[in-house]
């Protein structure tokens, strides 16, 4: 039997706290970091891609995030979820990128980086998706960030809560209110 370390990704007890606790032995045995890396490299990349709209920039920023996380792992303190920690690094890297470049990416660029399924072939459905797209683009940054974390990065409510310093329930309520408002706007605009 060969083992390179704990297999944790699919454990039921593979909660956010488990990840944080894998970070503890991963501090000492860097090979264990791979599990955390494989778990989060895609959500972090998608989250950054949604922000910057450019795959090369997203790759570069993603690289910076995980190199920083790997470097800082010995200093990781189990205070929240590991996802909140690594996404805090990602948010800082994105912020630094925009401040250095002095520009914000256009939502059109984000649209280009998105995947458009074949469903767009249906006119009505495509129309509604485009409308939703526009509503999302018009959201204030804070609400857009919630959409990004929930639907692009696919973080759990608890993980988002830890990242934005809110309870899971408060996060659920905030997102629920946002969705309710989007729903109403969709319905109103189509009357």
């Amino acid at each position: 039997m060969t083992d390179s370390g704990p297999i944790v990704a699919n454990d039921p007890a593979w909660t956010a706290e488990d990840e944080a606790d894998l970070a503890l032995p991963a501090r000492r045995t860097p090979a264990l970091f791979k599990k955390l890396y494989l778990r989060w490299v895609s959500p972090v990349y998608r989250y950054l891609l949604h922000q910057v709209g450019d795959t090369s920039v997203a790759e570069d920023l993603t690289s910076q995030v995980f190199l920083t996380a790997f470097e800082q792992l010995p200093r990781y303190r189990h205070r929240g979820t590991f996802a909140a920690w690594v996404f805090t690094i990602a948010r800082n890297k994105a912020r630094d990128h925009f401040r250095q470049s002095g520009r914000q990416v256009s939502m059109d660029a984000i649209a280009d980086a998105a995947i458009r399924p074949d469903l767009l072939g249906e006119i009505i459905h495509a129309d509604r998706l485009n409308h939703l797209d526009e509503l999302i683009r018009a959201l204030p940054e804070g609400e857009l960030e919630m959409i990004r974390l929930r639907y692009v990065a696919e973080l759990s409510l608890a993980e988002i809560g830890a990242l934005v310093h809110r309870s899971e329930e408060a996060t659920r309520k905030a997102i629920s209110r946002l969705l309710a408002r989007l729903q109403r706007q969709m319905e109103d605009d189509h009357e």
Partner: protein
Amino acid sequence: MSDPARSILDEKLRTVTQMREPRPEFVEGLWAHITAQPASALPSVPERRRRRLARPAWYAIGLLVVSLVILTLVIGPQRVFAAVRELLGYIPGVGIVDQSGGIRVLAEPVSATRDGVTLTVTGATLTADGTHLQYRTFGIPRSAYPLSEDVSGCYEPEYLRLPDGTKLEGRGEMPPVPAGVAEAVFVLPCIGGTLPDTVPEDWELPLRFVPAPEELEVMPVVELSPSIGPGAETAAPAAAPEATAATQPSSGRSPVTLTQVIETSDGYILIGEFHPEVEPGRWAQVTGVPLIHDADGEKVPYSFPLDIQPPDVNDGSGGFGFAFQFRSAGLAYPLTLTFYGVNVSPADPEATAEFEFDFGPDPQPGQEWTPNLEIELAGHTLTLASVATDIGPSRNGYSFEFLTDPRVYSAAVEILGHTASGGGGGGGGGLTGGKFSASLAYERIPTGRVTILLSNLTVISDPLTWEGQWSPASPADQERAEPTPQPGLCLASESLDQVPAAPPGLFRGLALVYRQLEGTEDWGLVLQDLEGGDEQVLVRGTGWGALSPDGSQLAYSAADGIRIRDIAGGQEILTEAVGGYDMHWSPDGSQIAYIGGSSISTWVINGDGTRARQISDQSYDAVIGWSPDGAEVYFAIPFTGGAAWQVRAVNTTTLAWRDLFVIENGSAKSLSAALSPDGKWIAYRSRDHTGVYLVRTNGEEAHQVLEKVTQGISGIVWGRGGWLGVSMIDPSGDDRLLVLVQPETCLAYALPAVRGDLEGLHLE
């Protein structure tokens, strides 16, 4: 109850926001890049230490500046709405609840066991604004979970089914149960993450709800009106806290605002918002942690209550919400909350600077230049300290490191005539030791002589301090008596400073610690003499180690498994154990218990490295130790979904096992438990990692011996003579402190010569 329209919207949101996955080559290439880094590579100066070095430097520089801006602002004036005071209550472990409709709780815990798996609903709190449910499972075999990452197990949320058929869905927090409904069925369709047909599904447990007992601890939450400017008039009920007038910002809005205050059994929780006042285009950057001092200037230790969520501040100013919990015994009021930071702003958006650089005709991976070129930009001097190629599977560019004057935060870098396909940066200029970096990536790397353009220089303001003051409402609260000491408590935060250093000769022996190796960026296991002096680096790169009882051998986790080294002679063997950690030697040194295997369970191996055998069929165990006669191994098995551990003892010969008791107040996932050599006591880390509990091996007499002594306990190891070694993050936050405490007598000594996370202790 699910909303079909909402489900459709949810699906649409997923569609419109769907982003491409990263290229597999990128993912693999980045991992290769990461593993090519030195193990535990750290910046040359740890970030936290940089901030500490920066702050004194900042203050020194600030004295040279004509005006050092300090904004001192009040929290308030604060007003209390008496009616609101009755609405909200704080329940430890649950959070802030609406108690206007009364509070109900679970009448009694409910359990069911099917095919060796036990589901228990351990508690419920019902209020007008929600239902907080706690449940856990035990006995789920590792084989019930997928081994492959691309196979997902069950993910169907639990819910409460009311008598009328209504479903209240949610994970942990559900909608409120209507008043008058005293029963419900807890439905768990499947145990999260498990594969079909591996463990029982469709669990249903009947629950009964009753009014909360009078002894339920519900603390009043005092809502405070938002801070207002001077001259504003608001009714001030008698319970209004005092506020000390001080300079107000021009906007009239206080940057430090308290929104709620909770009076706990031994202190307070202050909840509020930090809103720095910044102009458009600027933001505040807080450096370091906020501090609380009392009126005597004494620092007030505080913690972050895990069950309270600070307000969300998202206005782009750099502000944030906060919640601080502290003990009030012996405090002098008012308290001062202090936030430290700087404002960051563009120096001159139009300013640019250019310089020439020659990369040569064929730059190679790992190539580096040290031009030490000084560049003037927007009135500041930048020094280009180094340029390096950044060429790899997914990268094709350069990285630049700049040294800055203390005012500079960052600048944008571009190579004229070459469009970067990506870029980034790091560091914070004067906040991070006077360095910042920038990297540029290209489809085709620029070569030869180029012109580099710098722009968008951002600068840091003079150091800023935002302060607020607060006092409790009534004078009686300000004269709170010292609390009655808990029996068995040896050290608390206020007594840690008084622990004396061990006198020479009191302790002879060795400590095995995990720490950064002197003069390197590597970490590893170091054997240190308890009195200082001799130390020996045993292993680099790994942090799991255990000393044999006689101190002559080291068992440690290596990339290829567990290795045993003779410390004096250096001979080493690779054991049969694969991927193991958390090693514990038996009292006679003939065996080692450890965690290993794909199920992360408890194993035992002979001291000569042979005959590895699994003694636990559970998962995610944590070894506690050996019985004094070496017949049994004690270990802890976590409950799934609840922060609790089942303590179990297994006979290593017969594999007969017995469950002893459940630890409910330990660390949720990293118990760090240790069994005393006499087999009578188990020491373990507290839930918040700031203290240590002791409990007898029959589960009785649980008590704290160390309470809130530090930001984090990092190691717990018993020595002979009833001495318990505890390593902890020292008050500065940068290093480790080792304390030996004898719980029976509460004698305690610090060992200042020993630094690092304690992995082993050999007392002669």
